[in-house]
């Protein structure tokens, strides 16, 4: 473009790109630092202090944290909750979103209002806790899933997406004698895969990041998901992993150990992230947010 060739335009671009690069760099440097630190020995950490690429490679930290079952257990809990929770949430959300997307459903607006209202006001910590308690879910893994079944935000996005599917398809299916469930599962869902995939990933990340529900509803430390364990080790600097390995008094875990736990807690998200990115690039979601 013409303006880009002017001095002012070029300068503007230069400054822009530079600033953005710095920002991107600042955003990821902490991660890189942590990953690097986890792959070196604590001796190196003590000497080198700032590490972006380890000069001495070592799996010491990882060997250590995997030497007891604690972290495996926590990962298992988190994985189970994530997989089951995501499937369950996606199913219930899709069913409700589809029903609400049908224009001739009486009471649709009322239901939508009730849904949106929950985004503006809530009963709060204790009342919700009491409900969970009354349902007998305290100290059960169910408490990590059921109370978070539907995200109103995701529901609205999916509903809007369904609404944008051409009515003609539904009508011709109805003429062919297809039931509502049939239309949903055989026509609408296959067409909605980008939205379903993206929302599933949203749910999955939310479930993987479960923390508050766990500390509220779970009593046994054996049931802790990975995020709670992470906090124990890093923030509270208690050595959950230091079970019987050391004979003298238990020192707090050192930097490399903490970093290794962080990496383990973050890894699944990092693996799933490229798939998410693909969909944002498509901007598939963007149109539905406003509605």
């Amino acid at each position, binding site marked *: *473009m013409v*303006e880009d060739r002017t001095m002012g*335009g070029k300068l*503007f671009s230069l400054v822009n*790109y530079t*600033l*953005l690069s710095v920002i*991107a760099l600042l*955003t*990821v440097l*902490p*991660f890189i630092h*942590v990953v690097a630190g986890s792959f070196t020995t604590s001796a190196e*950490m003590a000497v080198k*202090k700032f*590490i972006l690429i380890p000069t001495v490679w070592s799996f010491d930290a990882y060997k250590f944290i995997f030497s007891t079952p604690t972290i495996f257990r926590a990962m298992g809990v988190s994985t189970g909750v994530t997989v089951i929770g995501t499937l369950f949430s996606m199913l*219930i959300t899709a*069913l*409700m979103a589809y*029903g*609400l997307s049908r224009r001739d*459903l*009486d009471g649709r607006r009322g*239901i939508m209002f*009730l*849904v949106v209202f*929950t985004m*503006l*006001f*809530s*009963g*709060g*910590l*204790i*009342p*919700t*806790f009491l*409900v969970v308690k009354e349902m007998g879910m305290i100290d059960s893994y169910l408490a990590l899933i*059921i*109370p978070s*079944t539907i995200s109103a935000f995701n*529901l609205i996005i999916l509903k809007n997406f369904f609404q944008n599917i051409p009515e003609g398809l539904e009508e011709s299916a109805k003429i062919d004698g297809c039931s*509502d469930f049939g239309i*949903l599962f055989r026509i609408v869902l296959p067409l909605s895969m980008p939205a379903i995939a993206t929302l599933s990933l949203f749910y999955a990340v939310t479930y993987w*990041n479960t*923390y508050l529900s766990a500390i*509220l509803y779970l009593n046994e430390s054996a049931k802790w998901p990975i*995020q709670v364990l*992470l906090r124990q080790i*890093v*923030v509270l600097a208690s050595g959950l992993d230091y079970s019987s390995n050391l004979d003298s008094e238990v020192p707090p875990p*050192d*930097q490399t150990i*903490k970093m290794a736990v962080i990496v383990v*807690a*973050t890894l699944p*998200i990092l693996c799933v992230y490229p798939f998410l*990115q693909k969909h944002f*690039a498509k901007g598939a979601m*963007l149109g539905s947010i406003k509605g």
Partner: protein
Amino acid sequence: MEQAAVQRKTAPAVGSLWSERKKRLWRNKWLYLMVLPGILYFIVFKYVPMAGLVIAFQNYKPHLGFTGSEWVGLEHFKRLFTEPDFLNILTNTLLLFGMNLLFYFPIPIILALMLNEVRITFFKRFFQTLVYLPHFMSWVIIVSISFVMLTMDGGILNELLAYFGFEKINFLLSPEWFRPTYIIQVIWREAGWGTIIYLAAIASVDPQLYEAARMDGAGRMRQVWHITLPAIRSVIIILLILKIGDVLELGFEHVYLLLNSMNREVAEIIDTYVYTAALRQGQFSYSTAIGFFKSFVGLLLVVFANKLAKRMGEEGVY
């Protein structure tokens, strides 16, 4: 045609409207079945707790239940307002909120505007990939990474300070550093993700407007100021309204993770106070009253902000 005209002129009897409705309801029975689990969820886990707010007006004891516990009316609310710590906690909450609005809120907008000026698609995509990432990390991860970097005991930031001859700073425990640490973490985590919605709004601006401005000799900065910004004004306002509604909702998990005995003075916000009062001290009714107060004020603020926006000619959130 005559018959149709006659039928139109006659007001339909109430009975026939109802029978149409019945037919529709019956025809949609499966749709209602589909919607049912979701509705049950909202009722049980969102609306029943709202009804449970009633314990804010009681002296709730678990073994007595709702019906057995005595009524005390507004006693807990009165207590809240006369609690010496309350003013402090409220101030903390409002300050964090203010910082959020002032320091965090504009950043995604600015980033989106900057990003919009990027012509190299690869750069844009790469940048987005990097800055969206922190949003998907739990607060535990964000805080943990910060801890590891800020600790006095080998954390990279303090090591750098020492290297350059400065004194090490106790970022994690000292009250003065709580708020800066908090807001930087918020920006780090959410600024990138926040750009999505602004980028979408910016992208929907008619390119012809830019053309026209260029013909009139407007440079890039002016184009941004006069075309882009006004175009995304609605989005900004809606998000601002939602943010205000969030005001007292301030990210309990985040603050809870940063809270410790040393920075409690500045770090304790309404939500953490509720948590402590409830779970540590078993004061169910009192903490519910606080939570109720908070949610209610939040609701009022959203309604107010929404009205304000409508008066300014914008569409509201509802």
